C-alpha cells in the first residue's frame, strides 16, 4: 500500500526528522534467523524495511550483499519465500512499510501480474527493481497500479536534468537517490552535500527523496538526514549481521535510526 509509505514520511516530516530505511537480505543465512531480524527492525527504529530478494547475478551489488544472497539461496530462499517472510511479518505489524528489492529475472519468471498480486497478498508495499529502468517497466507499473503498490525508481548522479522527469514519472511513495556511481558497499568518496540533487528530485517528482549508497555510519546518516527526507543503509547492516550476529545488527540499526531521527 502506498498509504503506509506516505504516512511514515508525513509523520517524520512533522517531527522534523528523516525516515530511516534499512535493507536486509531475505533469508540470510536461513529463514528463521532472517525472520527474527525482520521482526525486530521496527522496534529498533526502522521506518521502512527494504527486503532483499536473492539473485545469482547481482550486477549492481558489492561482495557483501552478493555473498548474503549466496547464503540465502543456499538456505533455500527464493522470491516466493521472501514474499512469505513479508506475509509472516505483516501478521503482527500493520504499520511498517516493506519494499522488496532485487533484480528483474525472478520477477519476470514469476510473471509481472502474478508477482504484483502475490506481493499485495503478502502485505508488501512496493518494490525496487534494480535493472528495470523506466524504459522497460511499463508492464510491471500497470500491474502495480492495479494493486496500489509503489514502484520505487532510482535516480543517480548520471541522471541529468533532461532525463529526471522521465525517471520520476509514474513513481509513487518516494524516489531513491543513489548518491554515488558504483556498487553497493563501496566506500563513500564524494563527501559533498546531496542537498541540491535532493531538491531537484523533490521538485521534479513532488515526492520525498531517500538517499542511499555509501552511508555506513551514524555520523554520515545524520549528515544525509539534514538534506534528505530519508536515509538508506544496507551493506553495513548486512555485514554486521553476518559477522557479529543479531544483537550487534540491532545495536547498529538503533544507532543509525537515532542518527537519522536526530
Amino acid at each position, binding site marked *: 500500500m502506498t498509504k503506509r509509505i506516505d504516512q511514515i514520511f508525513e509523520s517524520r516530516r512533522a517531527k522534523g526528522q528523516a525516515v530511516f530505511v534499512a535493507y536486509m537480505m531475505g533469508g540470510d543465512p536461513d529463514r528463521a534467523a532472517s525472520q527474527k531480524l525482520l521482526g525486530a527492525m521496527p522496534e529498533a527504529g526502522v521506518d521502512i524495511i527494504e527486503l532483499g530478494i536473492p539473485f*545469482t*547475478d547481482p550486477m*549492481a551489488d558489492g561482495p557483501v550483499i552478493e555473498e548474503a544472497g549466496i547464503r540465502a539461496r543456499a538456505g533455500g530462499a527464493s522470491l516466493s519465500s521472501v514474499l512469505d517472510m513479508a506475509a509472516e511479518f505483516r501478521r503482527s505489524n500493520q504499520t511498517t512499510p516493506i519494499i522488496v528489492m532485487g533484480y528483474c*529475472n525472478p520477477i519476470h519468471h514469476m510473471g509481472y501480474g502474478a508477482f504484483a498480486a502475490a506481493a499485495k497478498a503478502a502485505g508488501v508495499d512496493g518494490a525496487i527493481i534494480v*535493472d528495470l529502468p523506466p524504459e522497460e517497466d511499463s508492464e510491471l507499473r500497470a500491474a502495480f497500479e492495479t494493486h496500489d503498490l509503489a514502484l520505487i525508481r*532510482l535516480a543517480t548522479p548520471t541522471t541529468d536534468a533532461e*532525463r529526471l522527469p522521465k525517471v520520476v514519472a509514474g513513481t509513487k511513495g518516494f524516489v531513491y537517490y*543513489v548518491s554515488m*556511481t558504483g556498487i553497493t558497499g563501496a566506500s563513500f568518496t564524494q563527501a559533498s552535500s546531496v542537498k541540491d540533487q535532493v531538491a531537484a528530485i523533490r521538485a521534479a517528482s513532488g515526492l520525498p527523496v531517500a538517499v542511499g549508497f555509501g552511508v555506513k555510519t551514524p555520523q554520515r546518516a545524520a549528515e544525509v538526514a539534514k538534506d534528505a527526507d530519508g536515509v538508506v543503509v544496507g551493506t553495513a547492516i548486512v555485514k554486521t549481521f553476518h559477522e557479529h550476529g543479531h544483537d550487534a545488527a540491532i545495536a547498529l540499526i538503533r544507532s543509525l535510526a537515532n542518527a537519522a531521527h536526530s
Partner: protein
Amino acid sequence: MGKIDNRAWPDENGRFGDFGGRYVAETLMPPILALEKAYEEAKADPSFLREIDEFFAHYIGRPSPLYFAERLTEHANGAKIYFKRDELNHTGAHKINNCMGQLLLAKRMGKKRIIAETGAGQHGVATATVAARLGMECIVYMGATDIVRQKPNVFRMRLLGAEVRAVHSGTATLKDAMNEALRDWVTNVAETFYCIGTVAGPHPYPAMVRDFQAIIGREAKAQILEREGRLPDAVIACIGGGSNAMGLFHDFIPDTSVRLIGVEAAGRGVDSGLHAASLTGGSPGVLHGNRTYLLQDEHGQISDAHSISAGLDYPGIGPEHAWLHDTGRAEYVSATDTEALEHFQLCAKLEGILPALEPSHALPRTLDTAKELGKDGLIIMNMCGRGDKDVFTIADALGEEISEGTEGVNRKAY
C-alpha cells in the same frame, strides 16, 4: 566497410520482437543512450567507415578466405563444405572485427579506458590488441576457472599491456566476468568504454556488435557467388553469445532459400542438465541488460552453464538469435563436448586445421547437414577461431599428459 545495413531491426527501443531492450541500472541508462547516439552518428560518417575498412584490410587481414574443405567434403560424402576462415584474422578469431569497430568508436567518443569481459580469452586478446594499437588503457575481466583453462591467452593479454582481473564470484566463468565488468562500468562510468564481446547486453550492443561482425557474411556471400555462382543452401556457426553466427547469418537473412543453422554447446548432453544450450534447453528471461533465452531454475535464478569450450560456456544468447529462433528463420541445434572433441581431431587430420573448441561444435552438424543435402548441396561453416589456445584442455580431455616441461617450453615460445 560500406553502408551499415540494419535490416530494420532492432526497433527504436532496441527490441527484436519481444527480445533485447535495455535492462540496466539507472546509473548506466544515460551512458548507453549516449553510446547509441554516438554509434548512430559514427555509422553514418563515411570517414569512420573508411577508418574501419583500412584496419580491416591491413591490420586484421580481411577479407578472410573462403576455403573449400575438400577432404571433409569427401568424408561426409554429401554437400560441398566451405569454411569461412575467420580464424586466420589477426589474433586468431572473429572477435577482433568487433573490437576494431568498438574501440574506434571509443576513440571518437574520447574514452581512453577500455574494459572487457572474456570467456575463452579471444575477445580479451582482441580487445587488448586493439587497445595497444590505439594507445588505450585496457582492463579485462576473466573468470578464475577460465584463467586456468585458457592460460596462453591470459599471458598474451598481459604481453599486450592489458591488466587481467580474475573474477572468483559465482561460477567464475564468462557470466561472472560480465557481472564484474558491469560493476566496473557503473563505478567508473564517466571515463570508461565497455567493449562487450558478443551480440548481447543492453541496446545498442546486440545491434552494434552484429553490424561490426556482419562483414563475415557479406564477404562470404560475395565469395561463394564468385566461386559457385549461387547462394549456399545452408550457413552454419557455433553459438555461445552468438556473435560469429550473427556475423555470418546477417547478410543471408533476406535470402530465405539459405538455411541459417546455429549450433549450441550441449556439454554432457542437453538431457543431462549440464549444458550451455539456452535456446534448446532454456526459457525467456532477463540477464545482462537484455531479454532473451536463458538457463534458469523454477525460481528465475540463473543456472550454471557447462561446456568444454570456455567461449560457449554462457547461460544466455544474443536477443536477435532468440528472435530468429521464435520466428523460425534460423534453426538451432546442439553438439556435445564429446562430439566437439572428435570433430576437432577429424578436422585436424583431414584438413590440417586445428579449429578452436568453439567451431569444433559446428563441425558435426555441418557433416550431418552435408549428408542431408546430398551431393548437389552447398554449405558454408564459420571457422571462427583457431585451436592453439585449447591444446591444454584438449590434451586433458583426451587423457594425454602435457608435462610441466612441455608447458614451460610453450610458455617460453611466447
